[in-house]
């Protein structure tokens, strides 16, 4: 009976190690503080109505940023823990924690950390930010009011949140995450070698968020292909939209493969099938192939929107249209197409024939060509331009330097003979980080610095932003250049200890120092945001076009109204907005009826049931799984046959709303003018301000008492 209700779950599953107790405490505390703050401010209703149930892609985009940002800190902490372990992991250093023979982490724990780090950074940070950016910016860029299916959008977001919860659930129940590496290669991830619940958490966190990603991708493709403003043919589409389109086309192609593969892996563990087992005719190589067919394009799915961001930024900050728009688009198309046919280069060493290896090696080398085309269009755009070194441009330039090294190290890995030497070495890990940090993460930071005023109505602080940028660059070089060298010296990846006589320790210490500098950079980015909030009047974006931008999103106010545009703009050329602005031919106010989707909580309910479904399967509570499936079906039916999911905002109401917004703008403008004399805050100013704030608070409390 007990087994029926609780499955495998018992008191042993509750936190008992320092990190699970710590993790649980942090999560519960964070939740408690959030609940207290919201209750005290009486903001529950507001939170539910204005944010959680919202179907506005702009709000969903911001929610992606918030959850993704928290996960960035969480995944970053994992990285610091690994760096610390490796710095302490030489054989001449005694173990200083529990079971650890070297350093402070046991091997098992270290393995779980690098697995979690990989999953969190790729799925719950990079994907979140990319989806957030696309959500917010693409509809504005193509002159649409919304996404094709607002409901699918909130559902996708909440499934992502379900995945986030699932990946962190092991702190509270189970105490172990997968110790298999981020792709849980079979047969290691099978029941025989990984009997615990860690891999099950891995499967279900990826499964739930993966389905959300598929839905999101489908939605974005529909939006881009079917909802562009009149006159915006494909060849007039902004480049970020192009990057997003290619990326999402890849996503709908490969995410179903992930979903199917995860199901098979789950069947192997749960039902005892023999797809990827070592016995009864199973074929683990099938898993390796299938997972990399998804896994390789996944990195490009993250990369292409970032390429799009860079194309926008370089054009804006060089005050020139992108050099050879066509080459740029074709370059992105080439990269995305090639990315689908190189997956085997991840396992050259696993016994494919020479011909097969040669083919995939060549395909991998060829990817360099479209990528180089992209690089040349960016460099040519800067040539002869009036370059402004604002933070987005800095992130772009940092990307150019670092990504180039990442790409070139990739070319070395693409030669099968060289790969036989470098396979599974830190060289590979460094190569990957040069690309995903230098490319994807810098792209995300670049995009956020660029579009921040669109999101909030005020620009980001540039001074602290610059400092954060330099910390990141310095820290990155300090931690990942030694990693490249270590790889060439023979250090393998996923190494929690090594012999001191290898002479690797100084490099690992250098990497730790680099990691700390990156952490400082991250803190500075948070300070940058807080300082900007404090000086929001000073940094107010009065025109909605602070950078003298070129594409349609800059034609709206910052932030735009929920319907984005009062009247959908008509597009005549690639640079319509820029030309209209320069010719002073921006259209005047006009109003029309607008169909607006109603808020819905159906996405939240479905994601909640999906989470419970996964949780039920992890712990073998079959009743919970069945109840969850029924729950999902019931919500889908109620939502699917609800014919009142939209309402009409009449032209008169739109006009009234616009007037209200204009008044608010006037007020803000006055505040802005009054604050113009302020200097932009530096780090010291910020600290002084916070100190003053704290002192005032204490003084007030004292005054109340007396």
């Amino acid at each position, binding site marked *: 009976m007990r087994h029926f209700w609780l499955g495998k779950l018992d008191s042993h599953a509750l936190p008992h190690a320092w990190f699970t107790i710590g993790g649980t405490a942090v999560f519960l505390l964070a939740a408690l503080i959030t609940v207290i703050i919201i209750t005290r401010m009486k903001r529950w209703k507001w939170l539910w109505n204005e944010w959680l149930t919202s179907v506005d892609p702009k709000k969903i985009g911001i929610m992606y940023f918030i959850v993704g940002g928290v996960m960035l800190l969480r995944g970053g902490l994992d990285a610091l823990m690994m760096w610390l372990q490796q710095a302490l992991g030489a054989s001449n250093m005694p173990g200083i924690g529990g079971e650890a023979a070297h350093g402070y982490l046991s091997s098992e724990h270290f393995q779980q950390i690098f697995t979690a780090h990989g999953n969190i950074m790729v799925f719950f940070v990079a994907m979140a930010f990319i989806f957030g950016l696309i959500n917010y910016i693409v509809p504005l860029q193509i002159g649409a009011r919304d996404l094709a299916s607002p409901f699918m959008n909130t559902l996708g977001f909440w499934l992502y949140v379900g995945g986030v919860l699932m990946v962190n659930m092991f702190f509270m129940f189970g105490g172990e995450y997968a110790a298999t590496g981020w792709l849980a290669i079979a047969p290691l991830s099978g029941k025989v070698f990984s009997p615990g619940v860690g891999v099950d958490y891995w499967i279900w966190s990826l499964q739930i968020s993966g389905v959300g990603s598929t839905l999101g991708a489908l939605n974005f493709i529909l939006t881009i292909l079917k909802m562009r403003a009149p006159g915006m043919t494909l060849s007039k589409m902004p480049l970020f939209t192009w990057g997003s389109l290619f990326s999402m086309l890849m996503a709908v192609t490969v995410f179903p*493969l992930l979903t199917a593969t995860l199901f098979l892996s789950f069947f192997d563990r749960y039902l005892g*099938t023999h797809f990827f087992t070592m016995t009864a005719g199973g074929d683990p190589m*099938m898993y390796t192939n299938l997972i990399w067919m998804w896994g390789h394009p996944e990195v490009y799915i993250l990369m292409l929107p970032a390429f799009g961001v860079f194309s926008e930024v370089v054009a804006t900050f060089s005050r020139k249209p992108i050099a050879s728009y066509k080459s740029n688009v074709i370059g992105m198309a080439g990269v995305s197409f090639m990315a689908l046919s190189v997956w085997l280069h991840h396992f050259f060493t696993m016994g494919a024939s020479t011909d097969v290896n040669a083919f995939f090696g060549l395909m991998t080398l060829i990817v360099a060509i479209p990528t180089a085309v992209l690089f040349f269009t960016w460099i040519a755009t800067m040539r002869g331009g009036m370059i402004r070194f604002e933070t987005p441009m800095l992130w772009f330039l940092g990307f150019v330097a670092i990504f180039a090294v990442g790409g070139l190290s990739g070319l070395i890995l693409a030669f099968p003979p060289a790969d036989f030497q470098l396979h599974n070495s830190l060289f590979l890990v460094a190569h990957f980080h040069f690309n995903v940090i230098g490319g994807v993460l810098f792209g995300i930071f670049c995009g956020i610095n660029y579009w921040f005023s669109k999101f909030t109505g005020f620009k980001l602080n540039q001074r602290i932003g610059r400092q954060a940028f330099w910390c990141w660059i310095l820290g990155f070089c300090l931690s990942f250049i030694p990693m490249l060298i270590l790889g060439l010296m023979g250090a393998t990846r996923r190494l929690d200890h090594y012999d001191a006589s290898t002479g690797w320790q100084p490099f690992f210490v250098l990497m730790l120092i680099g990691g700390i500098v990156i952490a400082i950079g991250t803190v500075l980015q948070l300070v940058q945001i807080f300082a900007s909030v404090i000086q929001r009047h000073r940094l107010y974006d009065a025109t909605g076009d602070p950078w003298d931008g070129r594409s349609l999103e800059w034609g709206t106010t910052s932030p735009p109204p929920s319907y984005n545009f009062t009247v959908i703009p008509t597009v005549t050329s690639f640079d319509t907005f820029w030309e209209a602005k320069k010719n002073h031919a921006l259209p005047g106010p006009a109003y029309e009826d607008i169909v607006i989707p109603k808020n819905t909580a159906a996405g939240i309910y479905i994601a909640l049931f999906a989470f419970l479904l996964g949780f039920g399967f992890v712990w073998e509570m079959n009743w919970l799984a069945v109840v969850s499936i029924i729950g999902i079906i019931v919500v889908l039916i109620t939502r699917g046959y609800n014919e009142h999911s939209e309402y009409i905002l009449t032209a008169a109401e739109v006009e009234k709303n616009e007037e209200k917004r204009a008044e608010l703008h006037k007020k803000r403008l006055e505040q802005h003018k009054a604050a113009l004399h302020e200097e932009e805050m530096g780090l010291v100013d910020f600290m002084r301000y916070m100190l003053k704030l704290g002192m005032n608070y204490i003084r007030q409390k004292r005054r109340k008492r007396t």
Partner: protein
Amino acid sequence: MNEQALTHHERLEAAANDRVKFGFWIYLMTDLLMFSVLFACYAVLHGNHVGSPAGRELFSLPLALKETLILLTSSFTCGIAMVAARRGNKNMTLFWFAITFILGLLFLKFELTEFRQFILEGHTLKTNAFLSSFFVLVGTHGLHITSGLLWMGTTMIFVMKRGLNSALVRKLSLLSLFWHFLDIVWIFIFTIVYLGAFA
């Protein structure tokens, strides 16, 4: 003014219809990709029966042919139902969808009979990789048929209650796409799994 607003809304609705259909096609393609993984697994693993009987000794072609004919017929009746739906003939729509529904159930019954027989003979999905890939491939198709039936049943109830309004006709047309799609997938299963075993 009113008339103009109406055409504006009509235009929006037509665009929405267009989007939904296109989106559903993309969904079908993603579903096809999932099936392609299962087919690939079957293609790679179907020889690995590790001492247990192979497909040739297990499968019954007459049963598979029966299932095929039933499903093909249901696709045909589904087509007729859609013609009736587009003409706004509620009773005929319901009648033909009811026939489709019954044929779908019949198909499921035969499939489950086959599964049951295998399991009773001791050939379960745990036995070997061949049977794992067989059960999962054919079972996934069956699961799709089940969800199609669920969708059909619900939509029929709503048609009875609300009549053939444009939203429901749109749902029915997606459903028929889905049903034909499953038919095509079954043709591949019939060819690769059943006929392939005797080739």
